[in-house]
């Protein structure tokens, strides 16, 4: 089977079969991470560069570890420590990395569509590690892997996503991916953080946080992205926590075996009380392991496609 495209730009570009192949591959990769010897030769003799124009802990480190666990030569470059700080354009920067023999460029950028604008111009494969408010496909894939480990089919499952919908690339990628696999996504957040036309992406807009979470099979909180807000979209943290947070009471409305996810980093006491973050239903920390597994799967499958051409 394999992946059709040279690049992984978003869930928009993946077929349901490709998504399932990534998830199945990731399940295998997870065994590598949890084994005593975290080394394979899948990417031996290959190179992976992470190019980050935005801060990151989980995504960047998990890509780096994923590539290293599979034996690749890996390097990192960030906007602040590079010629980007001297005003070099994205395209020039990307071409420079490309010409050093890089096989895969993993890129994060604050502008939506930034990886799309360079992918066609490079020999290297481009993996979107988050572009502005557009997509974060490997986050959605790791969220989906977390779900896939707990229910074997997505069809008919209710996934509740609460918080700052407007600025969230995570919600966009999840909405697209989950819809492709037949799940029902319900979203809720302040109206000031609800983008016009989101329902056209196949999600349902709930009337309240309770309505959103009720009978859900999985619940996801989203970080309030204060850094992307040009002006305040809600009056205070206290008010947000009271009307929009996933409290223990709200979480009780979900199905008894439902679990709680959050892409991190979390604003404790804003979108989630710490008690909820740490509760038995929370799989937030387990998601992090899945992040490495999914990124191993993505790098492996993209490299396999390159090798076969």
């Amino acid at each position: 089977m394999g992946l059709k495209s040279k690049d992984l730009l978003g869930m928009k570009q993946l077929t349901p079969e490709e998504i399932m192949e990534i998830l199945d591959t990731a399940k295998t990769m997870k065994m590598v991470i949890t084994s005593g010897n975290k080394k394979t030769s899948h990417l031996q003799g290959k190179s992976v560069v992470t190019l980050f124009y935005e801060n990151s802990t989980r995504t960047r480190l998990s890509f780096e570890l994923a590539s290293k666990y599979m034996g690749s030569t890996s390097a990192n470059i960030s906007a602040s420590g590079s010629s980007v700080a001297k005003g070099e354009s994205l395209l020039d920067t990307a071409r420079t990395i490309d010409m050093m023999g890089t096989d895969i460029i993993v890129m994060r950028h604050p502008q939506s569509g930034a990886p799309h604008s360079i992918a066609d111009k490079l020999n290297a494969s481009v993996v979107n590690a988050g572009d502005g408010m557009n997509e974060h496909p490997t986050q959605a894939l790791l969220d989906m892997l977390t779900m896939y480990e707990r229910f074997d089919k997505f069809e008919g499952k209710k996934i509740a996503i609460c918080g700052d919908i407007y600025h969230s690339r995570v919600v966009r990628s999840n909405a697209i991916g989950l819809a492709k696999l037949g799940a029902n996504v319900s979203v809720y957040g302040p109206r000031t953080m609800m983008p016009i036309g989101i329902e056209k992406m196949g999600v349902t807009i709930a009337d309240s946080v309770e309505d959103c979470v009720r009978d859900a099979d999985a619940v996801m909180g989203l970080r309030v992205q204060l850094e992307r807000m040009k002006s305040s979209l809600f009056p205070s943290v206290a008010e947000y926590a009271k009307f929009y947070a996933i409290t223990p009471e709200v979480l009780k409305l979900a199905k008894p075996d439902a679990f709680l996810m959050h892409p991190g980093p979390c604003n404790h006491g804003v979108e989630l009380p710490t008690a909820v973050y740490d509760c038995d239903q929370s799989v937030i920390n387990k998601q992090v392991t899945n992040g490495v597994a999914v990124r191993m799967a993505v790098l492996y499958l993209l490299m396999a496609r390159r090798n076969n051409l």
Partner: protein
Amino acid sequence: MKTILKNCKLVNSDKTEIYIEDGKFADKFDEKIADEVIDVNGRTVLPGLVDMHVHFREPGYEYKENIATGSAAAARGGFTSVCTMPNTNPVCDNAAVVSGIIKKANEVGLVRVYPIGAAGKNLESNELAEIGLMKEAGIVAISNDGKPIATSGFMRKVLEYSSDFDIPVLNHEEDLTISDGAMNEGEVSTSIGIRGVPTASEDIMIARDIILSEYLGIPVHICHVSTKGGLRMIREAKARGVKVTCETCPHYFTLTDKSCENYDTNFKMHPPLRTEEDRLAVIEAIKDGTVDCIVTDHAPHHQDDKEVEFSHALNGIVGLESSFALCYTYLVKPGIITMEKLLELMCYNPSNILKLGRGGMNVGDDADLAVFDLDNEFVFEKDKMLSKGRNTPFDGWKLYGQTVLTMMGGKKTYELR
């Protein structure tokens, strides 16, 4: 200098020959005394087109376009008169810049250039620019285009003061307090994560300008209308007798925001491409006379300004060289409007609104004309453009209405080779 065009096809006339003497249309004279006889082989001859909304970038941004290349592009599009917007550097907000543009345009001599002055000094909405002195230097209108005349109070001042000089006010309609995006706000912008420019931003300002125009009894011209709601208000205001006129552009009746899905910056302009509903409303408004003019908003940019992240890319597309063919192919050929109507939109109405006195083909009128091939399909190619800008969304489009010949004052300014 005596020229004859023969085998012409004219709109509304059975004449097949056109006589030009010393730059003016003339009475019939003997072919033997002609300096040149041009056989146009049955092609359609129209009065030279008028575009009341272009950006020639000179002075200041000559790397994007200059008066010479902009003029050549205009001539290739069949235009013999254009009005240049004032957002140059320095801004065209004083008589010296106006005179400089006119002097340069006359030296180039490929199109009649009528500068538009800034309404506010440095395109700000604080202090009035020297509208009277700029009129003496040759401006035909004022506008802060690229930016709105932001506050109601300043707009009132601009309308009142410019009316003393009988200078039309053209406004770019955008309420910046609810508009900070890079494309139309809606389903597509949400799906691809680009901040949006809501139709409400344009509609609110159009409403304001209609209200002020009606209240003061002073005409206002609405630039590049892209929304269904804006057109509805203009239609309703006109019916009530408000002195409001408006323009739209070919991209608003040929494209929608769906085209932005791949982050191609050649589909990024202000106002942004809207939805299919808006596109159909623009066509309806062209048909029923709500729209007075079709302009290009010709906005050349260098690739360095466009081959960047979508949100960082500058707004605008070139338009002079594709405008007539798009209008002919998508409005006249399918029978939505007649050629006479298209001439109103692309020649007579802009000339009348700005009192340019263009469009005449009677004996004694300046011999401004353009010859088009309406019968044969051609491929519009960006690499053949004479504009410095390559930022067109229409590269590779198959169109009808290629320009064959353009003459300004009896002088050839473009000839298809």
